[in-house]
């Protein structure tokens, strides 16, 4: 780390100086730095399983997945297949008018399952609004998440029981909230050994521009908060490529705040599991925070209201299909005798069953009663609001009596 003590090093990027982000055409340097949507995460990409299903040895990270035998890897595979199947089902349900909107996670299964499975029950996760796969790993039922997208609720899971905070829609807000939670873990003396607690917060490449994210990094650094900042760089903030947010690969920003940053192949479930376990362990022992940039790709639209054909090329999507997070695990398991055809068939069948059950549930979801509008605005009752509620209920009752 001696180079970091040089003032020169801190102020001048030096060799590999990056071009302005506003360049009309991506330069080779931008592509290599991963600032333009690309299949290549660059030389610093941590990867344990290649897109071709080859296991890459890593002296640093292999110990963190030493327990992942074939059975465990089959479990991760199954998680990803089910999460993807549920995602596709929800997307279809939106198209059929059963959901108001859907936020697809297609392509990000490994980032979410890998990091989600790295968490322990006492850890806390703060999602953005695309982390259905993390929620699944935290034991939240998709049924509890779909109310938000059917617009009947704001999400109904038990946040404490699952250690999975409510979804946050305003970009980057949750990063500060998560940092505060992690500060609390530290203040409560829950940090410092193998049994320590940690927090993970999810956000995207676009969010890294928000002041809240910057402030979260500052607070976490100043208070040594046990928090993993898990940035899923899926290359696109709606229509804006990552180069609209940064001149520098996002993981390198951590250095400016004084904590480690690492880029992992976000389509490699083993890599994501290992790197997240490593980062959480640092946090548990009081050596947080850590920034992880999971380099992945949003294979579908931003939401079902978005039309990505207006701003990105299908070539790019096709290239990323070759980096599929699920396929590489299937290839690895098959080639190494970790699973046979019947296993894959069984997983498909289970996923179909999972989706059918979800579908049935959504079709039978009831709308909330109108008076729900007034519920839980405050912890302690407000006379003013109670009067409004009574007036509203009397007004509604008037319709039943034929007054109107």
């Amino acid at each position, binding site marked *: 780390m001696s180079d970091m003590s040089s003032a020169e090093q801190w102020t001048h990027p030096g060799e590999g100086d990056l071009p302005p982000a506003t360049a009309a055409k991506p330069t080779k340097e931008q592509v290599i730095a991963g600032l333009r949507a690309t299949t290549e995460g660059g030389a610093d990409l941590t990867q344990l399983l290649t897109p071709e299903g080859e296991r890459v040895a890593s002296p640093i990270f292999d110990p963190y997945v030493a327990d992942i035998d074939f059975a465990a890897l089959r479990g991760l595979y199954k998680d990803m297949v089910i999460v993807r199947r549920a995602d596709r089902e929800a997307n279809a349900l939106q198209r059929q008018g059963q959901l108001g*909107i859907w936020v697809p996670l297609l392509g990000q299964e490994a980032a979410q399952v890998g990091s989600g499975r790295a968490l322990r029950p006492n850890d806390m996760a703060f999602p953005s609004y695309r982390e259905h796969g993390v929620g699944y790993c935290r034991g939240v039922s998709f049924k509890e998440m779909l109310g*938000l997208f059917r617009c009947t609720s704001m999400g109904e899971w038990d946040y404490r029981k699952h250690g999975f905070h409510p979804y946050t829609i305003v970009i980057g807000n949750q990063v500060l909230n998560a940092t505060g939670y992690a500060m609390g873990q530290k203040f409560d003396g829950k940090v410092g050994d193998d049994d320590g607690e940690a927090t993970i917060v999810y956000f995207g490449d676009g969010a890294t521009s928000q002041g*809240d994210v910057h402030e979260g990094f500052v607070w976490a650094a100043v208070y040594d908060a046990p928090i993993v900042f898990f940035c899923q760089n899926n290359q696109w*903030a*709606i229509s*804006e490529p990552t180069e*609209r947010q940064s001149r520098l690969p996002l993981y390198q920003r951590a250095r400016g705040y004084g904590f480690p940053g690492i880029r992992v192949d976000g389509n490699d479930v083993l890599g994501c599991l290992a790197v997240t376990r490593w980062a959480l362990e640092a946090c548990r022992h009081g050596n947080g925070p850590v920034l992880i940039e999971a380099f992945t790709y949003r294979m579908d639209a931003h939401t079902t209201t978005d039309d990505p054909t207006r701003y990105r090329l299908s070539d790019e999507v096709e290239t990323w299909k070759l980096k599929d997070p699920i396929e590489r695990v299937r290839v690895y398991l098959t080639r190494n005798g970790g699973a046979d055809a019947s296993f894959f068939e069984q997983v498909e069948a289970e996923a179909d069953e999972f989706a059918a059950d979800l579908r049935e549930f959504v079709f039978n979801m009831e709308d*909330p009663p109108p008076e729900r509008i*007034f519920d839980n605005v405050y912890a302690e009752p407000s006379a003013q*609001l109670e009067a409004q509620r009574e007036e509203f209920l009397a007004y509604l009752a008037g319709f039943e009596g034929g007054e109107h």
Partner: protein
Amino acid sequence: MSAPTTPNVAAPASSTVQTLTIGKAINMGLRAAMERDNKVIVMGEDVGKLGGVFRITDGLQKDFGEERVLDTPLAESGIIGTAVGLAVRGYRPVCEIQFEGFIFPGFDQINSQVAKLHARTQGRVKVPMVIRVPYGGGIGAVEHHSESPESYFAHLAGVKAVTPSNPVDAYWMIQQAIFSDDPILVFEPKKLYHMSALKEPVDTAATPMPLFKSKVLRTGTAATLVCYGPTVKTCLEAAETAAEEGNELEVIDLRALSPMDLEPVFASVRKTGRLIAVSEAPSEASLTSEIAARVQQECFYSLEAPVLRVTAFDTPYPPSKLEEHYLPDVDRILHAVDQSLEW
């Protein structure tokens, strides 16, 4: 007291009449302003290639280039704060906030710089910028996509605010706001953006009405409805229904939210004696509160009933399956009219 001045927006030499939606009218208004003055620039999230999530800036980057239509990093404080600097430098920035619920990271800049630089410098620094804010509900959206936060900005001295309810106003208001030397928020009723029922001919050679004037849309004697933005359409529908029942309602579109032009409202109330103020925003400490306060002061002896309000409830915006109950509709407006008439 002199009325606030409206910047002169001259019609271009070659004028046309086109039948437009509100959304397309804003797009054409932006285009006209950008053609007229190359210091007019558009900035916001996804406003370039995508044309904004509502397509209001569609085609502008293609025609005016990336230096006049900026896809900004994803940060509202950044969008508004850098627009202040650009305005100080001589530009006329038009910021797009993607949805009203996302404006709050930028609220500090609006409150502390946008609204105060002119007064702080005794007029030496002008901040001629526009902040476009799609607002209002009724679109079946998730949280933060349906709110009506305009009262916060009306409360804030130093910024002005307007809202169109029809394509003609939409076309002219955006241009008048851009060429004003004051910072102006344009609240755009997103539910009405692409509503073809509201399409109307927009004559680009017409003389626009002043920016900070309210407008009587329908005359009547039984009671007065005052409304703005998304509730104008609802109030006109309510007035139709009331007329079938023999009650002619006067409907006034406020148009300007700050400063408000309430003289036509006072004149109307002196005639009808009854006022119902309608808004999608919660009622507590809101624009409708302000209207009620001023009307009781100016029209005290004319009032036959208290000023009534039909608004959202004083709660967060509910899950949108419930928004039909939360937002003012024709029934709730007519219920209030009945209450007023029976007082």
